[in-house]
């Protein structure tokens, strides 16, 4: 698997979520992802970016385009926030410590092909999602 390009997008404030969505839209359409796949990864990015801001206190998104053998888009959201004590619980639908629907994390997992999450209390959270073409 070869990484074709890498770029970082800051995810600090609420307007950054719009920037994240726009950037992911641009990159995924350049990669030639189908409209449905584009919409899926944009929506997942939107959820995770908002989580990064609300629960992680801000961080960044890394955008990687992948090539060979398969074309795909990989996004990594990273923050230095309080971390998630129980990842399984956080992934469960309807569970939230905030005021949302509690579907963002589990939902974005279902919207992508690969979903990896590393989180430790006090050590921040890193979530990597990949959508293949």
């Amino acid at each position, binding site marked *: 698997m070869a990484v074709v390009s890498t770029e970082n997008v800051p995810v600090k404030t609420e307007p950054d979520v719009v920037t994240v969505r726009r950037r992911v839209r641009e990159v995924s359409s350049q990669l030639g992802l189908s409209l449905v796949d584009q919409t*899926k990864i944009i929506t997942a990015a939107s959820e995770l970016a908002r989580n990064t801001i609300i629960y992680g206190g801000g961080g960044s998104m890394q955008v990687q385009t992948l090539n060979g053998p398969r074309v795909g888009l990989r996004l990594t959201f990273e923050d230095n926030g309080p971390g998630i004590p129980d990842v399984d619980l956080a992934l469960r639908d309807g569970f939230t410590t905030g005021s949302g629907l509690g579907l963002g994390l589990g939902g974005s997992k279902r*919207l992508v092909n690969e979903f990896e999450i590393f989180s430790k209390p006090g050590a921040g959270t890193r979530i990597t999602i990949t959508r293949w073409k």
Partner: protein
Amino acid sequence: MSEMQLNQKGAKLVDILSGQEERILAEWMKEMTGSTRRGDLIKESELRAECTQFLKLLKQTTEAAGTDFQSPSFGPMREMLGDVSRGRAQKGFKPSETATFVFSLKRPLFDQIQTQYKGDTDAMAAEMWSLTELLDAMGLYTMEVFQKSREDMIRRQQEELLELSTPVVKLWDGILALPIIGTLDSARTQVVMESLLQAIVQTNSRMAIIDITGVPTVDTVVAQHLLKTVTAARLMGADCIISGVRPQIAQTIVHLGINLLDVTTKATLAAAFSVALQRLGISFVRDAAKS
């Protein structure tokens, strides 16, 4: 610096320019091809006309007023540079590409100075220095105007976006529609939703259609806003229909696990309108005489 010295300096630049306009222009155009020419944004003939005009003005102005860009005699030059810069900003040039319009003139002029002052290094250095100062001042001025016109553009767009605040339209007696365009997770959402609830009261409507055709992404926050509005409208005795659910949005909603089962949703505004009419017991009959 006395007036005479200024004039003298200016006079030198005039000497350099006069008779050589064609050559300088050609070299300048070549210089720009290498660094900043954007054939996609500006036509060759247009660029040539700008350059010719610029050289003509430069000659006239320096002849009369030397190389002090701050002097009032440079008014026409400033105006021209301002126009060039604003035009570039609107056409979508990058700031550096805009500044290079002026900076790329350096090499052709310096070459010219070198030819003319062969052997007289002191005079050459002095002439180059005053020319550099002038061109730098012009370049900076171009950037200032560019920046300002960009800011003006952004401010205007922001105002236009506010103007765009979503209107609630009446489709029929008792049926309202709220076509939403753009993102729905900002502070704007609250305003949009409130205006719908207000309109329901004012028009005493029983049906409200929220059209999300123009909403590019429906994530959990957007869905939550929609559900809240539907619930609030229901409490006020109005039924909501969400229309404009495109295939990709429908799939995304399913994967996210958002439950919209309690809400009537339709793919198009037309379908939603038809449902609304049905619920109000309104039906249309084709006029046989006219069809």
